[in-house]
């Protein structure tokens, strides 16, 4: 999802030029850099690159839904990396930060809910984990409906 999402937004902004497009390009670069670091086994360094991305100011020209998509994508990746590093509390914070940007019926919400469920489960908070998994499943079911009816928004 990560790079595909960023490039999708980049494509949409390509014609706009300016700071908004530059911010999305920087996000794509950050993901590419994180990919490389993960391949080298340097997960913590990859997390730092993505943390820098989410803490960077977002230009006002970036549309709200693009801002949310890019940042939630990065938070989901950060949460995934934290889980791989066996740092569930940190993963929970990232997932919460991502979901705090707004939750709509899309892949970002489903992904972040799943990751938050995994973090809760790793922390022994089973009831919370089940609720997050259920919420993620309901979103995924709605996305399946869209895919079957020819929509298929990712």
């Amino acid at each position, binding site marked *: 999802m990560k790079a595909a999402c960023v490039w999708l937004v980049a494509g949409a902004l390509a014609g706009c030029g300016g700071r908004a497009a530059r911010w999305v390009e920087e996000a794509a670069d950050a993901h590419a850099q994180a990919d490389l670091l993960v391949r080298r086994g340097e997960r913590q360094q990859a997390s730092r690159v993505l943390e820098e991305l989410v803490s960077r100011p977002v230009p006002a020209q970036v549309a709200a839904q693009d801002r949310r998509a890019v940042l939630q994508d990065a938070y989901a990746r950060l949460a995934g990396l934290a889980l791989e590093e066996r740092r569930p509390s940190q993963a929970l914070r990232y997932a919460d930060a991502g979901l705090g940007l707004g939750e709509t019926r899309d892949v970002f919400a489903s992904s972040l809910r799943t990751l938050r469920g995994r973090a809760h489960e790793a922390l022994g908070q089973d009831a919370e984990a089940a609720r997050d*998994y259920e919420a993620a499943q*309901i979103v995924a079911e709605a996305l399946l409906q869209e*895919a079957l009816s020819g929509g298929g928004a990712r």
Partner: protein
Amino acid sequence: MSPRLLSAALLATAACASAVPRSPAPATASDAERATALGHEQRAGELERVLSALSVEEKPPDCPRVCELVDQICDLSQRICLISGRHAEDADLGARCAAAELRCRRSRDRIPPSCSCQPH
């Protein structure tokens, strides 16, 4: 005639219908001529509507996407039911597990025959 050919034929007909210059009817046009012109316009509109419907029906399902989502739904069902299994006394978790399994089954049942999703 295949739906694709039918679409092409309808498109050509609709295009022809809309390409006919719509010069104002001469003052001397008879009621019959006006009725014929109106009929052509209505037919062009109907053909456009048929074409739109056909183009929606024709769109094949995005099988990789469908399979990926069904996998996700069923994976989440397994996760919920594993948790429920650890708390057999918890009726709320039991109900969530049952509902999650139902969503998984329902999703699998909805896979179009043209998609061959591999079970995981």
